[in-house]
């Protein structure tokens, strides 16, 4: 019985671990430099972080769809990025003031 309990516990833990590693990293800071394909962000804690953009990157300004052209050096930005090789690639770029999201209970 103990063995079965242990096996079940191991399975549950393994399943938890399998889904625990979220691939996205959230980069939060002020834009210090931009190129056609990258955004450099000065985060609070660390050295500047450069995130690369892709054709699939989604931009959102104040909760509405936007483009990279709407983003400027000095803007506060939150980038949801994924590590591909040694580069951080942006999935979503959020900037501009946002209304508080109404959470569901």
């Amino acid at each position, binding site marked *: 019985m103990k063995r079965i309990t242990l096996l079940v516990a191991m399975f549950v833990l393994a399943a938890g671990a399998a*889904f625990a590693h979220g*691939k996205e990293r*959230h980069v*939060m800071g002020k834009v210090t430099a931009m190129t056609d394909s990258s955004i450099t962000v000065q985060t609070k804690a660390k050295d500047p972080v450069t995130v690369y953009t892709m054709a699939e990157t989604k931009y959102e300004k104040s*909760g509405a*769809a936007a483009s990279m052209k709407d983003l400027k050096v000095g803007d*506060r*930005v*939150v980038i949801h990025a994924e590590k591909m090789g040694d580069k951080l690639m942006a999935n979503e770029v*959020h*900037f*501009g*003031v*946002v209304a*508080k*999201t*109404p*959470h*569901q209970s």
Partner: protein
Amino acid sequence: MIKWTLLLSIIAAGAAGAAAFGWVTIRRGFSARDNPSALEAFLAKTARNLSIPASERDAKNPFAPTAEVLGEARAHFADHCATCHGNDGSGKTEIGQNLYPKAPDLRQSETQNLTDGQIYYIIHNGIRLTGMPAWGGPGKDDDSWQLVLFIRHLPQMTPQEMKEMEPFNPKSAAERSEEEDEQRFLNEDKSSEMKKKMHH
């Protein structure tokens, strides 16, 4: 005698074919990363379609696609289905793309060509040996019929509708907290501007 020989040959060929198929399937392993082979997909879909009784397949949706019904179904889909299928029904989510078989793109003909009754039956009863659970309780359920209407609406979804679904997507306490931190950070400029104005 010839008839018996022919029958035995057919049975032997069938058994050999089944054994070969089983061997190849097992040798490919049981990883969820692969896509089902064309033969496996064909057999599975045929078995699924045959398993749906004709009376269920031809059943008519008791609901009309009113704004109210679609709104309720949209919120329900965001809460219960989008984790695997995505708010847009594309199936392009972390879980959806790592299931075996992968979550289908519900906007495509493979789903849209099913009858309302077939889609209802799949939502209500689930599909064995896939990631699709049975959502319905005993007897008929209204929620599954309303979801059928929403699935029919998926190919015409607007970005605004997708945005409205986001608050209904399941999130952990940590994710909500992180989202609030991000919103607070983005709004800091606005609050400091307001403070400056009040100061002057």
